[in-house]
């Protein structure tokens, strides 16, 4: 058996001691990140979420594109009407709409093509004008644009017959619609972005939070915390743990957001992006503040427990808060939304939604952020004390009240 080697040359100097005391949190942060990156569950959930985001955007785009592509059967003369409708739709800025005609030999052939579902509709002559044939429901795209085309073609014909021209007839009929204060983003898009970020925040603070609490319990239950506590201060341990998980959470969020943006760009929705990019930045800032605050409370939930079975009980209050922040954040409107957007934690979702929707002036998110930071600082101070007090109490599960009262 060999002997335990001494290391006279590289034994600790006092200078090393001070520097490692200052940077112990970095070592803890590194471990938290490296353990998490090797965790199969974490990797799988990240990849699956990413796939869902890209898939959802792609699916929407394909569906939207497919919804606008229509084939109309005609028995010959209707072809020009269909072509006119297609041109008018494009002139009207409806790039997603595309109308194609399929020429068939007779009206009955058109009927049977519609019946069999090979075409979306049929256009047949009827008396002086035209008639649309559909199968079981009326198609809005076809009726709108073919309707306009028929109207225009017929008016043209009638104008010529009346000895005038179409432009002369249409003179003065246009009605421009100007907006004094146009909203950059549609309400629908703002809502969608709000839901998406709100849900990501909810998911991340719950999943990462549980992971933080479990890693605290693991250290407490296996008493490794005693070895750690004899080497570094518990505050350094808490900082490293919260920071490691927060960095991962924010990195995950940025990847998700980037994937969504790239998917939107790739599918030609670039115009929608311009309006929401500012709001997304606010989401990331609020997300970070909210996440770190909650992460410290999750660490307390872990420290209060003595076994992982206790976590169910100790994590209930914080889970309830997170669910309330999510539900209230995405569902309220009007004055209630304005109030929530200043209430720390609740502002995490409510304020960025207002920014995206364009209902917040420039200073409002700043004030709300300052409030969130102040409250976060207070919560973290208390959580830090509770964490340090309860981490070494291994006898039984503690309550939040115990942790506030117990001496170290």
């Amino acid at each position, binding site marked *: 058996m060999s*002997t335990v080697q001494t*290391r006279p040359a590289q034994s600790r100097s006092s200078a090393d001691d001070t520097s490692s005391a200052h940077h112990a949190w970095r070592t803890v942060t590194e471990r938290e990140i490296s353990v998490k990156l090797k965790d199969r569950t974490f990797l799988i959930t990240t990849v699956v979420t990413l796939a869902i985001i890209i898939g959802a955007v792609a699916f929407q785009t394909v569906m939207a594109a497919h919804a606008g592509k229509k084939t109309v059967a005609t028995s010959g003369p209707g072809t020009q009407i269909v072509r006119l409708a297609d041109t008018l739709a494009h002139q009207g800025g409806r790039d997603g709409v595309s109308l194609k005609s399929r020429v068939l030999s007779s009206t009955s052939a058109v009927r049977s093509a519609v019946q069999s579902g090979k075409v979306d509709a049929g256009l047949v002559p009827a008396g002086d004008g035209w008639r649309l044939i559909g199968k079981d429901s009326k198609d809005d795209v076809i009726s709108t644009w073919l309707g306009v085309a028929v109207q225009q073609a017929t008016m043209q014909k009638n104008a010529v017959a009346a000895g005038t021209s179409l432009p002369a007839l249409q003179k003065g009929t246009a009605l421009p619609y100007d907006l004094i204060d146009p909203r950059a983003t549609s309400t629908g898009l703002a809502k969608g972005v709000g839901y998406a970020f709100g849900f990501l925040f909810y998911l991340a603070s719950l999943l990462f939070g549980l992971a933080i609490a479990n890693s605290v319990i693991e250290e407490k239950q*296996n008493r490794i915390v005693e*070895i750690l506590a004899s080497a570094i201060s518990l505050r350094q341990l808490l900082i490293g743990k919260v920071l490691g998980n927060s960095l991962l959470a924010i990195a995950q969020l940025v990847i998700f957001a980037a994937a969504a943006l790239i998917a939107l760009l790739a599918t030609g929705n670039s115009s929608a992006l311009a309006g929401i990019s500012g709001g997304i930045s606010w989401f990331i800032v609020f997300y970070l503040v909210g996440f770190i605050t909650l992460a410290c409370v999750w660490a307390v939930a872990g420290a209060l427990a003595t076994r992982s079975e206790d976590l169910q009980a100790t994590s209930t209050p914080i889970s309830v808060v997170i669910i309330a922040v999510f539900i209230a954040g995405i569902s309220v409107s009007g004055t209630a939304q304005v109030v929530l957007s200043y209430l720390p934690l609740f502002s995490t979702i409510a304020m960025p939604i207002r920014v995206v929707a364009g209902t917040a002036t420039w200073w409002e998110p700043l004030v709300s952020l300052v409030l969130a930071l102040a409250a976060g600082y207070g919560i973290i101070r208390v959580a830090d004390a509770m964490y340090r007090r309860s981490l070494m109490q291994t006898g039984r599960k503690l309550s939040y009240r115990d942790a506030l009262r117990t001496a170290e």
Partner: protein
Amino acid sequence: MLEVDHLVRRFGEITAVDAISFAVGDGQMTGFVGGNGAGKTTTMRMIMGVLSIHGGGVQWRGRPITAADRRGFGYMPEERGLYPKQPIMDQLIYLGRLQGLSASGARQRAKTLLERFNLGDRHKDKLESLSLGNQQRVQIAAAVISDPQMLVLDEPFSGLDPAAVDEMADVLREFTDRGVPVLFSSHQLDLVDRLCDQLVVLSAGRVVARGTAAELRRRGPVRHRLITAGDAGWVRGLPGIEVIDVDGGTALLELSEPADTDRILTEALRRGGVRELTEVVPTLADTYREVTR
């Protein structure tokens, strides 16, 4: 040298550690003995700064101990455990770095230690996949990863097979040979007897005995066994000698002074011959029972 000076710790109404004092000299192996709830673990946790101190203090090399001093200590907690699901090499490096080693220094050190414990080829294995004996070996490796200035080990021998006990004892001796003070607690008195330079016996939060194993044995009254050729009943008549037991030719006696042996021998020879007169040294277990009663 580590000095524990009137250390006190209370849990609510209960005083778990009541003004305990002892010292662990450089290169000295000190055994911490006492029943469950005697205060061994609580004292060790206070030495390591894991539990706050309610009274008294701990001195290291003649001055109050600091967090930086403790970072240079090797510690093995009572219900030991490292991260069950992390590869053993990774966690040794992590603990080494927290105790102030550089990343490469910690890696080198962890490698050396794992090879020493014949775990070199298992460095990527998770702790939970190892046998209990091997987990203990990793645990001692964790305690000595940063070449500690002092070792504080709570029940390091519990659950070890005889070969592993010897291995652990060898490791501890290497440290005391280099002048490192070692304090360990144990229920196994034979082991403490064999290994320790000094024993500290605790009972109900107080030090009830302290000294070398030999000193502790002699704390009690020294007894002698006399075996005579004939019946030994006559010893009852001797003044100044307490008779504990007589059974035929065998008597167990407690003498008030060492010179009494001559008196007994003379008398026994006069009465028909002596087969044996020996000092009966109590076992450590006897003394332990005596002092903790």
